């Protein structure tokens, strides 16, 4: 290791103490929120379950835009060809909602995120914008072909979730945009879904690996459509398209399904070693969990 000299007080001199409390805005409509955003950059917050833990021993000094008074942006609605989940919908809202079986992975994830306290405050929109590789909501939404709705004063665009989250803590959200909703096309709402989370303790645990799986079964009992996603094993949770393709046509019985899974199906994963587990372990555990998730179909479990 080289000897270096680090001068930690190298900031440009200030006139006085730094501003310690920022202007804070809590509009009641998306339109108003977007207008505020147009006036200058702001830290967008909702449940604050990621923002405030990042400020232990510090104060929030950036200007804040708090979305939690925007009532329209909370709740789950069935619309023509899709389900719309407002960005401010909490995990508890998701867990308690009455939804088709394809959403059961999402609802299971909702019940396993943090503790009840986090589930009552944390929002789906926040989970996506925070873009943690271990975000529990992402695999369950990926298997629903979820899209995000991004609003700006200049217009609204929709992006597939997989195109929205770009990397560890990186998203395609522009500075003038707000993520307002998650849309799940009804074309992806068929079948049943399951979610498996692996952590090193029972509650309040960041996932080592998680797997979400959704299968649609044809009239003959074979798999008509499959969607499998793995989280915490790559910078962004990802689907396993080769496995999904290989499952089509397989009789929907647990042992038949699991027998399809090959290590090479997990090729899209790029796990790392961190305080929770080694990369090798993650890869093996992901394989095991994918097999188990598939085994649970055909047993009536999910």
């Amino acid at each position, binding site marked *: 290791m080289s000897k270096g000299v680090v001068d*930690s007080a190298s900031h440009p001199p200030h006139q006085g*103490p730094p501003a*310690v409390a920022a*202007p804070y805005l809590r509009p009641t409509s998306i339109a108003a929120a977007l207008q505020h955003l147009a006036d200058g950059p702001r830290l967008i917050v909702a449940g604050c379950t990621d923002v405030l833990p990042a400020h232990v021993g510090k104060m929030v000094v950036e200007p804040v835009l708090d979305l939690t008074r925007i009532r329209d942006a909370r709740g789950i609605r069935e619309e023509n060809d899709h389900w719309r989940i407002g960005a401010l919908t909490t995990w508890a809202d998701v867990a308690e909602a009455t939804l088709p079986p394809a959403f059961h992975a999402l609802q299971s994830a909702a019940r396993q995120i943090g503790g*009840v*306290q986090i589930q009552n405050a944390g929002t789906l929109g926040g989970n996506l914008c925070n873009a943690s590789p271990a975000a529990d909501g992402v695999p369950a939404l990926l298997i629903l072909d979820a899209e995000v709705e991004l609003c700006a004063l200049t217009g609204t665009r929709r992006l597939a979730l997989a195109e929205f989250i770009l990397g560890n803590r990186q998203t395609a959200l522009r500075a003038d945009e707000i993520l307002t909703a998650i849309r799940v096309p009804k074309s992806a709402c068929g079948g049943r879904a399951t979610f498996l989370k692996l952590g*090193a303790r029972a509650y309040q645990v960041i996932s080592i690996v998680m797997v979400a799986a959704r299968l649609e079964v044809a009239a003959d009992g074979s798999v008509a459509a499959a969607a499998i996603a793995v989280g915490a094993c790559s910078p962004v949770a990802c689907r396993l398209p080769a496995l999904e393709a290989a499952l089509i046509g397989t009789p929907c019985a647990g042992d038949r399904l699991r027998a399809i899974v090959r290590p090479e199906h997990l090729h899209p994963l790029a796990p790392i070693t961190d*305080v929770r587990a080694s990369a090798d372990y993650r890869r*093996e555990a992901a394989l095991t*969990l994918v097999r188990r998730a598939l085994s649970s179909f055909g047993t009536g479990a999910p």
Partner: protein
Amino acid sequence: MTASDDLTFTLNGRAVRVSVPPMRRLSQVLREDLDLKGTKVGCDAGDCGACTVLIDGHAVCACLTPAAQAQGRDVRTVEGLANGTLNRLQQAFLHYGAAQCGICTPGMLLAATALLERDPAPSEAAVQDALGGVLCRCTGYRKIIEAVLNAHRFPAEAQGKAATALVGARVPRVDGGGKVTGSEAFGDDLAPADALWLKLIRAPHASARFTIAPLAPLLARYPGIVRVLTAADVPGANEHGVIPAFRDQPVFAVEQVRFAGEAIAAIIGDETTVAGFDAADFPVRWEPLPPLADMDAATQAAAPLLHRDRPGNILTGGFVRRGDIEAAFANAAATVEGRFETSFVEHAYIEPEAGFAHRNGDTLELFVSTQTPHMDRDETARILALPPEKVRLVPTACGGGFGGKLDMAVQPYLAIAAWLLDRPVRCAYTRPESMASTTKRHPGRMHVRLAANNEGLLQAIDFAGDFDTGAYSSWGPTVATRVPIHCSGPYAVGSVLAQTRAILTNNAPSGAFRGFGTPQAAFATESLMDALADRLGIDRLEFRLKNALRAGDRTATGQLLTASVGMADCLVALQAPWQAARAAAQAHNAGNGITRRGVGVACMWYGCGNTALPNPSTMRVAVTADGRVVLYQGAVDIGQGSSTVLAQICAETLGLPLDVLTLVGADTSLTPDAGKTSASRQTFVSGRAIFAAATDLRRQILRLANAGERARLELTGTTLSFVDGADVRQVDLARLPADTNGVVLAAEATFDPPTSPLDADGQGVPYATYAFGAQMAEVLVDCELGTVQVLKVAAAHDVGRAVNPALVEGQIEGGIAQGIGMALMEEYIPGRNTNLHDYLIPTVGDVPPIETFLIEDPEPLGPYGAKGVGEPAMIATPAAILNAIRDATGVTITRVPATPDRVRAAIAAARARGAKASDVQG
């Protein structure tokens, strides 16, 4: 603070208005702006749940709720639960002993309330789901679950009930009321409103030289900073330590830091300035040096020395030799050998270090969360260059200690600041700085050999252990000394060679943590006990029973044990559960699925009190003219219940009901020195002291009326009645001559357990008594994922006498929970997991049902036969769990924690070697 907004909401049924910055944490608003201190802060990150409040009936973390989001809503805190009397849930918490230290209790109560309002009689699974977000480090959760499940059985309003005092009764804790109402004041709850705030500037490097630049520009830029402290400002000695001969830790580092998180300076000012201060603005130049990150690095020949007077970076060592070890191994019928490794473990008490200090004339008064008031007082006085009596130390309620609060943390900084500024000064560590800067359990690296003869009797143990003691000595010498004495386990072994070294590294100091190194040693020795039993073809429990220490045996230090050696009784108590659990595991494993069950057993023994050193406690009890019986007791109750146990012993001995006692203390200006709350000593040592004092006082009381020994005492107002059959005599205390404090009778007694120094071979009498225990763990191992679920724990402990069985169970269950953590998940990696989401401790879902067997083999020296129980359950737990994993899988895990990836890797490696589980199990 700029830009405060008016905020109105309903708080516990009343409308409140407060002007605060909108992003201020609701926890801070409640505590600092509205002065409701019942909502506790453990992490500010949503990890611990101590700050749980209800908003519109839903449980949320107040630390993650911006004040502005409370606008117009209905907020409920622990202060709103009781309506003049305890509600059902609060009564249940008291009844079942669900609150120990009490720091998590408000959060637990609120989280449970959210559930019970929807479902008054919930299932256990629902209770676990509701409480999963609140961490408790003391109780092991089982009594909390019981309280929530049974809350609906309690009356809506508490009924007054006369407390009985009998030793052996499940008396609710005497300090429980404040814990369930939130009125108990912890370290961060007492500072006056005008106190200044103090924040430490800490090293970001594990090893570095540094220079602090002139401070004038900083002070000009931050007018809210009233003072900066560095080493130059320390009035007396800029060093402290828990063992005078080993004092080596500076209050503020001078020119060089030895671990990441070491303090180099402090800033003091108003809350806004201090809370908003960015440590990167502090003018310091760092010159990082290559750190000695572990014991290998520190013991290389070319390694730089952490301290000039510690050659080879060896702080100290421990040594015990008895018998002829080489001959014993040469003649053995069976020998086994293994290498074992453990990790840094963090105490993770839910209350970070906190307190405040002020100057009262020529006395410095310090109110802090601590386990050792007199020692803190003396060290602080030395740092201030004051005589000890000019420092008054008043322990606040302690939100968990486990050994971690036996070292000073905020104490010297608050003392110096308050002394120099003559203003009250407060400080509470953040969770990351608590984890980075305070002591840890020593990582151990142990090489152990055991030998037995062909009758299955242990002949010899050869133990060599190195322990990473970090950058400063702390309790390293104690660990180095305790381990060789205990490492042979509670077994009769003729030949022992045990050598330890405490090695200095650039890590946070390792110190005292429940067991002082013995859980690490038990993990190693008990693993090999299984291997040796298998080698000999003897049942693992029966092998231990065959070798158990009994009265009449000599220990590794040559001490003759004469009484209270309940080891064999503990094992006998586990025989039936052992057989049943073995059968259940066998039945499960016959299915040959991917999950395998296993059962493990492990034993422990533990010397109560200091090792071969004086260890006195003094207790005082007095009767006043106004009809009170005052117990002046300086033993700090850190949640384990010593205040209750000592009061029970006192009342029983006096022959008066518990509720006539007034408890005073601990307070170094009011109570005599009871010594540290450590080493499982308060029930035994302080309990014996209060027994002696109360015995003396009763004699004095009886003399007032010339009453006989058998007379029953009754105290009504100031009238003391002596009832002996038909003979009733009365004395009016108000008519007796009283001293200036109103005391009419008083007694004080000291007990110092008889020990002797150890000789060069470690031979002697290090402890006056030992606790013994045997524990069994049943686990389910997922062989594909490597996850381990503990299904059940059975614990048999010889406690001499259970003064309060509910509290004893609380210690056992809490120790087991910490043992589960050490066995399966807890591994502090310096600089990497200084929070409670990367560093994992067990949650409510991780602690299984626990069956406790209390063995009472009375200790003649102890009060009513009692000895200690604070640490024992921790010691045997990791060993039992690891043995159960081996039983389940055939794989010996030699490093804890046995995380899923390590277990998975070990199973895979064993399979790769072609070893079948059944072969290894023998």
